[in-house]
């Protein structure tokens, strides 16, 4: 039983890291539909290095994060000139490219995947997710974080104010690549197996949904989004499994997607700026502060 909860906590931790990987570029106004591909780069880099060379885990993880960060940097330099839907398509195309390369390179196991000899337990992964969470929160409280948000809101005025808009976007995209690479490496070490299907476009879509539905205005949005989309489907599976009897096994996956789809649409209509907004948060905190005075 603790194995199941342990697994859930790890998946949640990985999803939190990935949500912040996608959040950073989105916070500068750049939608990234290639989140899972950067995770794949990190996962396969970790798998390859640990099978071919072997090294201490932190070293492998650092190399994996650097590889996906470097790829994100090069990609950002070339595609951040494009905007809006074209940027989304460019990141999507990049994700397809990564899948194609992995499937066709024998050294990466092709469609069969790769086993990973090293193992890391859930504890370190949860700790790293916590560090990422705190790190991104601190970053967003710096002037660089302010520049990211200003760039998101009005890049022309941000540029006029002396903010290096392009530099800010490239840096945020690169940092997102680093985080996704870390999540990928941790995934490889925890599950001891990587296959390309894990990092498909549906995963990238989900990551972007975590962030957009959680809300991009505050640093809490991705956390809420990742937690919601990790925990609710599991709860739902549990409920269906306990009610549906024999046929539940076939029902649950398809129904989960339908319910999730409905929840997504409802949330987008009800809260187009995401669940956590600055005004909402302010009202929440303001009310709490005002409460004793009213009592």
């Amino acid at each position, binding site marked *: 039983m603790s194995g199941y909860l342990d697994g859930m906590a790890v998946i949640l931790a990985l999803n939190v890291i990935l949500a912040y990987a996608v959040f950073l570029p989105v916070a500068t106004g750049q939608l990234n539909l290639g989140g899972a591909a950067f995770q794949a780069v990190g996962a396969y880099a970790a798998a390859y290095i640990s099978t071919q060379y072997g090294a201490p885990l932190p070293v492998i993880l650092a190399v994996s994060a650097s590889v996906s960060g470097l790829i994100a940097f090069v990609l950002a330099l070339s595609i951040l000139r494009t905007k809006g839907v074209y940027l989304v398509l460019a990141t999507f195309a990049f994700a397809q490219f990564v899948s194609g390369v992995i499937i066709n390179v024998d050294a990466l196991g092709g469609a069969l995947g790769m086993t990973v000899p090293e193992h890391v337990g859930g504890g370190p992964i949860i700790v790293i997710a916590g560090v990422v969470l705190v790190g991104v929160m*601190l*970053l967003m*409280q*710096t*002037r*660089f974080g*302010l*520049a990211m*948000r*200003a760039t*998101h*809101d*009005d890049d*022309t*005025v*941000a*540029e*006029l*104010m*002396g*903010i*290096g808009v392009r530099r800010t976007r490239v840096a945020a995209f690169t940092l997102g690549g680093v985080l996704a690479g870390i999540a990928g490496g941790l995934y490889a070490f925890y599950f001891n197996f990587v296959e390309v299907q894990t990092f498909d476009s549906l995963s990238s879509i989900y990551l972007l949904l975590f962030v957009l539905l959680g809300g991009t*205005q505050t640093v809490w949005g991705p956390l809420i989004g990742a937690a919601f989309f990790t925990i609710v489907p599991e709860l739902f599976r549990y409920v269906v499994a306990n009610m549906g009897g024999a046929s539940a096994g076939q029902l649950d996956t398809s129904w989960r997607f339908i319910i999730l789809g409905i929840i997504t649409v409802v949330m987008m209509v009800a809260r187009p700026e995401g669940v956590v907004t*600055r*005004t909402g948060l*302010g009202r929440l905190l303001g009310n709490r502060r005002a409460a004793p005075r009213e009592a």
Partner: protein
Amino acid sequence: MDAAVVLALRNVTKAFSGLKVVTDVSFDVREGQRTALIGPNGAGKTTVFNLISGAYSADRGAILLQGTDIAAKRPGERTVMGLARSFQNIRLMPHLSVVENVMVGQHARTRGMMDLLTPLWLKRNRAWRDEAESQLRAFGLGTYPNEVTANLPYGIRKKIEVVRALMSHPKVLLLDEPAAGLNTRETGDLKDFLMGVAEHGVTLLIVEHDMSLVRSLCEHTIVLNFGLKIYDGPTASVQEDPAVLEAYLGPRHNAA
């Protein structure tokens, strides 16, 4: 003795798809002076501001800031060199709070990575926020520092933009219709505030339709009509100038 020229345009021309919107415009703005740039709708006033601030690049001509031609510089570089502006259609960051918007205006004064990558609440960075908040208070905006600007009334947002523009510590401040949408009392407050700004050594160039504000605030006026400069002299005599009267009221009035 005349004060030094701090901003000068020399034969600046700008056309949009062949249509000349600013034609061969030259003028001087003198240090410490309060200069108005007026003209009928569509005269090219905002375009002149866009050319000075670098939002558009001029087809021809030079723009001199303290003697340096900035016509080829990027907008951010011009801000670092001492130019700041507000916008006719307010351009605040909608998801940023009031004080955060004002702090974005300080960006041109940051130096090095430590300014960028250390949390703003650290002791070393406190001065930024303190300055922003005290400037807001000076403008009577002290009550709103943490509100998101999108929810605030027009007149308030208009003033926040002026405070933000001041945060780069500009030598020359360009304001595009700062009194539009303000009531008489607010316009009076604005005038007092801008007088104070000017006394601190900031040179003002103001596009404004409210002639009573122009008369009470600006000693010097430049008039544009169809992209051409038609007047450049004391505000006191602008309304007697035949070319200006014709531009505003049509030729019949001039004949009468």
